[in-house]
């Protein structure tokens, strides 16, 4: 498997994603500057977290028009894997590669802490090595992670098994007190209809080795590695 990490002005998790992929997952990975029109030949595109374009206008709203995004859209359209983490998720929403939008956290606070998320689907390339119902300890760090979509979209997300991760207790119980940001239906991560594009607010790259306090994020990387070879 080969991966590319896209770098926008204001990305700040690009190095963490690169490190997780190269040093823990041990796959070939390269950075791609957002001005590049073409992607190298890769199996996985990672859109990392950060504050692309200073979060001006709306989170991800300007980054989605970066030259590289046309190639990312094409890559996704061909059914190849894309993972957007945090600001990467916000960019995928603005680009229309995933449905819905992000609102300010219900508490209006920027929240940076470990959360538990429950795995809802494992028939995806991102979660194939995780049990349905299994909870993962993965940190979040965002001010706008309050996922929103209209009722019709939410129904379609559930009908098509597109809700992949939901905020929950360590034991996998759902409830408002386990939902850090007010996200609709406790949604922490979704895939597109074809299930080759994942957007998630928690940062698996920050939980990819025990030294960081949790290695649960590596279950996602290992699922991808096992699916893409």
């Amino acid at each position, binding site marked *: 498997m080969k991966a590319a990490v896209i770098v926008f002005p204001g990305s700040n998790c690009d190095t963490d994603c690169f490190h997780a992929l190269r040093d823990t997952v041990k796959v070939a990975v390269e950075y791609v500057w957002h001005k590049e029109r073409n992607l190298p030949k890769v199996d996985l595109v990672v859109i990392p977290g950060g504050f692309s374009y200073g979060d001006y*206008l709306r989170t991800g709203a300007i980054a989605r028009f970066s030259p590289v995004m046309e190639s990312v859209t094409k890559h996704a359209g061909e059914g190849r894997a894309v993972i957007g983490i945090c600001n990467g998720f916000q960019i995928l929403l603005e680009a229309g590669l995933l449905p819905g939008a992000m609102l300010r956290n219900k508490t209006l606070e920027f929240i940076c802490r470990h959360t538990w998320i429950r795995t809802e689907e494992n028939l995806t390339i991102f979660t194939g090595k995780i049990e349905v119902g299994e909870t993962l300890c993965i940190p979040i760090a965002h001010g706008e992670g309050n996922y929103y979509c209209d009722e019709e979209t939410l129904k379609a997300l559930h009908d098509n098994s597109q809700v992949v991760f939901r905020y929950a207790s360590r034991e996998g119980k759902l409830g408002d007190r386990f939902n850090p940001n007010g996200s609709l239906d406790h949604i922490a991560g979704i895939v597109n209809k074809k299930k080759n594009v994942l957007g998630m607010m928690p940062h698996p790259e920050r939980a990819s080795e025990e030294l960081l306090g949790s290695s649960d994020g590596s279950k996602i990387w290992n699922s991808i590695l096992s699916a893409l070879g």
Partner: protein
Amino acid sequence: MRFKAVIHTSLKKSVLDPQGQTTLHALGSMGFKEAKSLRIGKAFELALEAEDREKAESCIHAMCDKLLHNPVIEEYTFELQPLA
């Protein structure tokens, strides 16, 4: 012709506005009992050059649809004035 447009974007009525609610609550706790509802949005002041009003309007709609507002959560209105 040169125009000045003021474009307002705000969250749709169906979308919860936590910023607006918190600010409304703060006004209430300061004793402003008059405040009954509050929504926070953004305003854009844009100067633009277009042949006529109609072209200016269609240009602003295009800008709003492509970039300035997110139709999933926001709606927009604008006022347009010719600049002398």
